[in-house]
């Protein structure tokens, strides 16, 4: 199964390297979200630094939905059967796709994080917590996103269906990640501990769900 996962992840990342859609479209989108928030929240009066953590994660989650859509859109070319015909193990495909999405998201977060620090003026206090939050949250987002991505795949309504399905599921992640990030930024005095635990549970749950359900769901696409 892991061999298959590596094969699929490598394939997806190679596609991204060639087409550069995530870099040239999804990343700027995340950037735009941050900027539009500044407009909407009237950057002068409101303390943007106070809400920066939340806004960052909103931008990440919205961009993640796009990244997932892209990941499954590449499967639709050439008749949509390439993945099924390959004969790879369902769990392996799931891990591979989720891993590729996670890698892209981590790169996205790094850049958007820098942008947030610059645009919203925050200081990073506990880098360790920040890193842990990023890794755990990304794993959860990638896993959940991949599960819903395959659900929505292949339908004409997939582009509108995916956000509707994915966002309620990702709401706890946004919540926990934002709170944890706030702790790391020193905005609140509360610790990030329980939130990190929640992120870990979420990631574990959705990895398990994906391993079990992805194979059968891919068949139905």
């Amino acid at each position, binding site marked *: 199964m892991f061999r298959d996962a590596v094969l699929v992840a490598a394939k997806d990342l190679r596609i991204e390297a060639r087409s550069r859609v995530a870099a040239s479209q999804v990343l700027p989108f995340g950037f735009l979200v941050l900027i539009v928030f500044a407009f909407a929240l009237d950057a002068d009066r409101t303390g943007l630094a106070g809400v920066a953590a939340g806004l960052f994660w909103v931008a990440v989650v919205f961009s993640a939905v796009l990244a997932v859509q892209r990941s499954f859109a590449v499967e639709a070319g050439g008749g949509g059967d390439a993945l099924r015909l390959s004969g790879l193990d369902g769990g392996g495909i799931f891990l591979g796709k989720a891993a590729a999405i996670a890698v892209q998201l981590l790169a996205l977060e790094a850049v958007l994080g820098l942008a947030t620090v610059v645009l919203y003026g925050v200081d990073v206090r506990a880098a360790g917590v920040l890193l842990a939050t990023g890794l755990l949250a990304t794993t959860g987002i990638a896993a959940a996103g991949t599960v819903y991505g395959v659900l929505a795949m292949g339908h004409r309504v997939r582009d509108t*269906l995916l956000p509707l399905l994915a966002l309620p*599921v990702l709401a*706890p992640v946004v919540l926990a990640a934002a709170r944890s990030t706030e702790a790391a930024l020193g905005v609140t005095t509360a610790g990030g501990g329980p939130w990190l635990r929640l992120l870990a549970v979420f990631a574990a749950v959705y990895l398990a769900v994906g391993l079990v359900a992805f194979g059968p769901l891919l068949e139905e696409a």
Partner: protein
Amino acid sequence: MSAPAPALPSPAPTRARRGPTPIRVLGLATVAALAATTWLALVASPADVNQRDAVRLLYLHVPTAWLAMYLSFAVTTLASALYLWPRTRSRFWDITAGASAEIGIVFIGLTLAIGSIWGRTTWGVWWTWDARLTSTAVLFVTYLGYLAVRRIPSDTEVRSRRAAVVALVAFVNVPLVHKSVEWWRGLHQPASILDERRLLDPQITGLMAATLLVAVVAFTLLYAWLLVHRFRLGWLEQRAEDEGLALALAERRAEASAADASPTPLGVGPEPSAS
């Protein structure tokens, strides 16, 4: 060789319209219980000291909340699991899951609306971001997604399986959402006026408790009755589809005879006049 449209088996029309006797009994019981609830809630039970008559909304709010969040979605989840489990796989569970979710969505909407009105009349706010309300709102949207998946134009088997998976994942999501929101609101000590625990569970004794119980029973009966009828609707839809399939199979096979009747060396498609 087109077969005539198959005649649907027809029980006596009145029975087909209103359903067999136990269902009608259920319906009557529901009406009776709801009537009792209405009387008790609006007339017999006392008004609350603080909230006065607004507390009567409690009798509507609590049952709908119980129905929506626990009963109907529990049924949906259970039915979805049974549908996916190979040994108990049957269209019965799929239709039940969908029916229960539809009813659940309606009641969740009612819960939120009534809660909102109650909040407005009592505390002057339409909404607060407390744990329960927020979790409920997320649950609402989650199951809207489930219903959206059920509507995707697709092969029935495929659609049912996907919907069942979505229902199970939604179920998994509920505790995650709930826990996270609870922790979140735990950080913000609620203002004493808006302490929802104090207001939602006022001193309920005596007649008020009895009324509440009757209300819950009445709404449960209502749920059961709605479920049965929505289920029957789905079941009949399914039967109509199946009979269409038999027809389609027959027509498809007829293509073979028509094609064989006049093959050309290059195998042109069946005649337009294929019977």
